[in-house]
């Protein structure tokens, strides 16, 4: 007679496995809580809890941050149009050369257009450039756009397979494995933030960031707010790369976060607000820090 029956043994085994998994999780959570980067912005609230279940797709194992709603503040008064964010994003997110422009697009807009007199979009368009002349140029201002991670996202609404979805912590993400490439979301997005893989991506093996999946041909992709970084308490790559601190990222639900403080203290607006998309990117025109 063995001291324990087979059933008991299995029960113990399962229990032990569970305990190991649990302890690893706890250890991970503890280590994560400790290593929140000491940056100016702390995107994740101090009492950061992970909701169980719902492992996130895209090959990135992250989980929604409970109680958080991430958002970005872009200061078009500070932006000098250098497109460093665009390039940083491109390398961080494995965007191939065939997707052009990459996920971020920076408009250079002429100052001569009298904005207070309600310039028409046509006037703006005529005065606009997305060409990469040396910047900043006198008489130009710059407007950086990317996926707005709308709360009421038209792209999520129209997707016939649910390949794009809104997460509880504010991201609009893509499941590249579900996407059939109908591009309905592309035409539904008023910000033209979505990109399509018209041809198979060509990337050097050494340039690939292993944290971000490489998208196959024929699927739609877009800015993810660097979900693989930001859910772990880091900043999106574009925010890090900005040489003039025109970008700020954080938890809009946390009144102490930098974005919340900025939005409380500064007048702000969102793009195409009348379309009721509720974007998560807000724009301010605070200007440079040291102009005083």
């Amino acid at each position, binding site marked *: 007679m063995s001291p324990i029956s087979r059933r008991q043994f299995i029960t113990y085994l399962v229990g032990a496995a569970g305990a190991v998994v649990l302890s690893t999780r706890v250890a991970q959570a503890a280590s994560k809580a400790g290593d929140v980067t000491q940056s100016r912005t702390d995107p994740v609230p101090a009492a950061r809890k992970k909701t169980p279940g719902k492992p996130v797709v895209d090959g990135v194992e992250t989980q929604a941050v409970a109680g958080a709603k991430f958002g970005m503040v872009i200061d078009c008064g500070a932006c000098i149009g*250098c497109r460093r964010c665009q390039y940083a994003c491109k390398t961080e997110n494995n965007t191939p050369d065939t997707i052009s422009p990459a996920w971020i697009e920076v408009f250079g807009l002429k100052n001569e257009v009298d904005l207070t007199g309600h310039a028409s979009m046509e006037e703006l368009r005529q005065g606009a450039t997305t060409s990469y002349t040396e910047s900043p140029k006198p008489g130009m201002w710059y407007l950086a756009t990317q996926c707005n991670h709308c709360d009421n996202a038209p792209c999520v609404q129209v997707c016939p397979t649910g390949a794009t979805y809104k997460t509880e912590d504010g991201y609009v993400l893509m499941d590249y494995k579900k996407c059939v490439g109908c591009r309905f979301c592309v035409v539904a997005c008023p910000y033209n933030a979505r990109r399509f893989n018209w041809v198979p991506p060509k990337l050097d093996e050494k340039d690939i960031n292993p944290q971000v999946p490489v998208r196959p041909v024929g699927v739609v992709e877009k800015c993810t707010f660097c979900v693989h970084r930001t859910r772990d308490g880091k900043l999106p790559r574009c925010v890090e790369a900005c040489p003039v601190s025109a970008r700020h990222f954080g938890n809009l639900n946390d009144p102490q976060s930098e974005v919340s403080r900025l939005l409380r203290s500064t007048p702000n607006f969102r793009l195409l607000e009348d379309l009721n998309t509720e974007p998560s990117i807000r724009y301010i025109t605070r200007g440079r820090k040291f102009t005083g």
Partner: protein
Amino acid sequence: MKWLTLVLGAALFAAVAWLLVRPALAAASGEVPAAAVSATAQPSSVDANYAVYGTAADYPHPAAPDGTAPLDCLSCHKQTLNYHDKLGAGNRACYACHVSTDWKMDTLQLPSGAVIPKDESSQLCGQCHQDRYNAWNEGTHGIPGTVAAIPCIACHNPHQPQVEFLNITKPPMPPVHTPPPLPKDLAIILGISVACLIAGAIILARRRENP
């Protein structure tokens, strides 16, 4: 007396610890160890420069500087200074920032006389542009700790600080994919055969109608 010993000892300990730890830290973050850079810079970095810009023979500097005689920069370098010409006349303007004896140009000199490595040039700019340097330190041009902060000279040419922006704009995005060309021969053959078939069909049908 007891307190003084304690404080001095603590300071000594801290300094030693700092000297030991700093290179390790710097190495970990991929930067050139500051302690290793002195007025006589390491040969390796000079070699690296030569690898890029040419050989030692291409540089008609004193082969073995004694470290005392100031160099006559302007005898060779026709550097025009815009705005920064107020730093001094002739070579004195160069010495305002560069170490007068370091022909390898690896070091810079603060007004206090302290020598700093070239990589920390922003500190030198801060000697006059204090407010901007403070803002820079606060992270206006990159967040300390996450990515290397972009130094002043990344954008502002130190010799022409007002007129020239250096290397700030990233190049244009690469062109998009172009569709493959039409296989003309195949298309012509197909067009002719389709036209012939349709014309033939119509002619035959006509003939059958009115024989």
